[in-house]
């Protein structure tokens, strides 16, 4: 593989992928939950490993490991009128950058891309800060992409965590 992997891919694919990742960040910040679920394939998963070297989420402790059902449940909880810890308001702002296509299946357009994110969260008159790496396995469907697996490696993976994460990063 050449040193600069990204050069192997077309500008158009690069742009499409970037737009997709920006859209995902916007959906999350706008709490557009219906659209959030639509980002994933039916068997799609959102995964935040508990260790940086972790190769799979199956059978191991994870910080997040959610299929569409678990994601749907999380949405129902945060939107529930008695979700007390959401009452104080909860706002986030993501920036996604350094988007690199790692590999692409030229036959069907499916690809793996990595990117970096920074995110601030405001809640209870306090701000928290998160950063890390996304690795998306994307399926090319209907002229757009769907997420088969989103791996999220946060910089502070070992913790300790000051409070918990109520929604996905």
């Amino acid at each position, binding site marked *: 593989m050449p040193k600069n992997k990204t050069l192997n891919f077309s500008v158009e694919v690069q742009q499409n992928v970037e737009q997709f990742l920006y859209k995902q960040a916007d959906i999350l910040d706008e709490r557009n939950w219906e659209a959030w679920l639509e980002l994933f394939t039916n068997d799609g998963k959102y995964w935040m490993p508990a260790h940086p070297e972790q190769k799979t989420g199956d059978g191991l402790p994870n910080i997040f490991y959610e299929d569409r059902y678990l994601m749907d449940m999380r949405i129902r*909880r945060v939107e*529930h009128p008695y979700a007390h810890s959401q009452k104080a308001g909860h706002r986030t702002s993501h920036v996604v950058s350094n988007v690199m296509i790692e590999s692409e299946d030229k036959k069907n357009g499916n690809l793996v891309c990595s990117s970096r994110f920074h995110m601030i969260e405001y809640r209870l008159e306090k701000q928290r800060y998160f950063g890390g790496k996304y690795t998306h396995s994307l399926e090319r469907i209907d002229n757009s992409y769907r997420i088969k697996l989103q791996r999220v490696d946060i910089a502070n993976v070992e913790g300790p965590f000051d409070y*918990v994460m109520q929604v996905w990063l």
Partner: protein
Amino acid sequence: MPYDQDFDLSTLVEDDRVHKACYADEAVYEKELENIFYKSWIYIGHESQVLNAGDYWTTWVGKERMILCRDDKGGVHVLYNRCPHHGALICNNHTGNSGNKHAFRCPYHAWQFNMDGSLRNLPMKDGYEGIIDLTDPQLQMKRAERQSTYRGFVFASLCKDGPDLETWLGAGGKSAFDDICNRSPDGECEIVANCFRIIQHSNWKTFLENQLDAVHPSITHHSTGDAASQMQKVYTKETGEDPPMGYQFLADFALPYEVWDSLDTIGHPFGHTQLAGYMGLRPRDPVTLAHEKVLTEAYGKKRMDEILSTNIHHVLVYPCLSVQPPLQQLRAVRPLAANKTLTEIWHFKLKGAPEGIYERSLAYYYLVNSPSTMVNADDLNNFRAVQDGLSLTGGGDWVSLHRNAGQDTVENGITTSITGMSEQPMRNMFAAWKEYMSTGA
């Protein structure tokens, strides 16, 4: 309330109410460290955390920073994390291995220590010749004053005297570890080498009290319980299959009051307290049947029945642990300040038990105890609200523990609650608190 040195701490605790200073006053907190955390036994870790020679984990006993480690003869040690030379922390990571020499090396001037804390070597020894013997104890890493293990669970006490570990645990405390280990056909469990650490902006007692607070789940966790029961239906409708057990764990948090009220809580000496189980972890599914089979082979049918009918959901080992034996979860409580508490969250595998039993434990570890928990998100928010409220000067001085006060049954020093919602667990823990704080038990 400003704390003054002559203040009698025992007046902060009455039979049915306690003063807010117990939770919010830094001076009271300092006294708690001195009289409780530096006197009682404190859970350090599990032997299987340090499987190999040189392995170590660091943790806290009050403000003291401790090391759990294993030497090359298999011995497990609890040491103060402090270099006897100029006092640097020896282990600066949460966990690791001391390298192929199985010796700690201080990052400052390279004094080296064996895993039992003894001085192994140091550079330029001649500077000490004729001055001090290098085997002098003051040149060694200090060991915890006492160390003891029950069924693989390692405790330390920073006080030379006091009851031995088993006496101190008593039937109530021991049940936490027995009920985990007995569920293994080998009688042993093994820790999963992952520690979730979560900081709570609240007093350490608030967390322990909440664990056995049967009034709060259906209120605090209403949203999660509802969402989980809705998803059980969606899941079955879409897949035609039974939803994974995890959804039931969460749906249970919103059980109606009557169910919680029908449970018992049992107060033991030294503040250890149990909650009877509710999660119906003995369904007739293939995993449970396979578990029954291996336990019957190991212990016979009668004993297997006894083991699996043990109905304990929660055991508090006061002041340091909340254990959920049937799900093999453990949360260690590390108070950092009056208003700040670290929890270290672990789970275990039962040696020789079917993989499916571990999958249940893992599902609970994820859904309830991980840093993305939907359950504790609301608990932690309440704990913070309690701490903020108790830190106010006005608005009242006392915390009410009146629910069913005086109605619980006491027999041979063991208190059984009249109902699951009795505030017996809080009163039992405060009775121990008062004892520790007035006598330094």
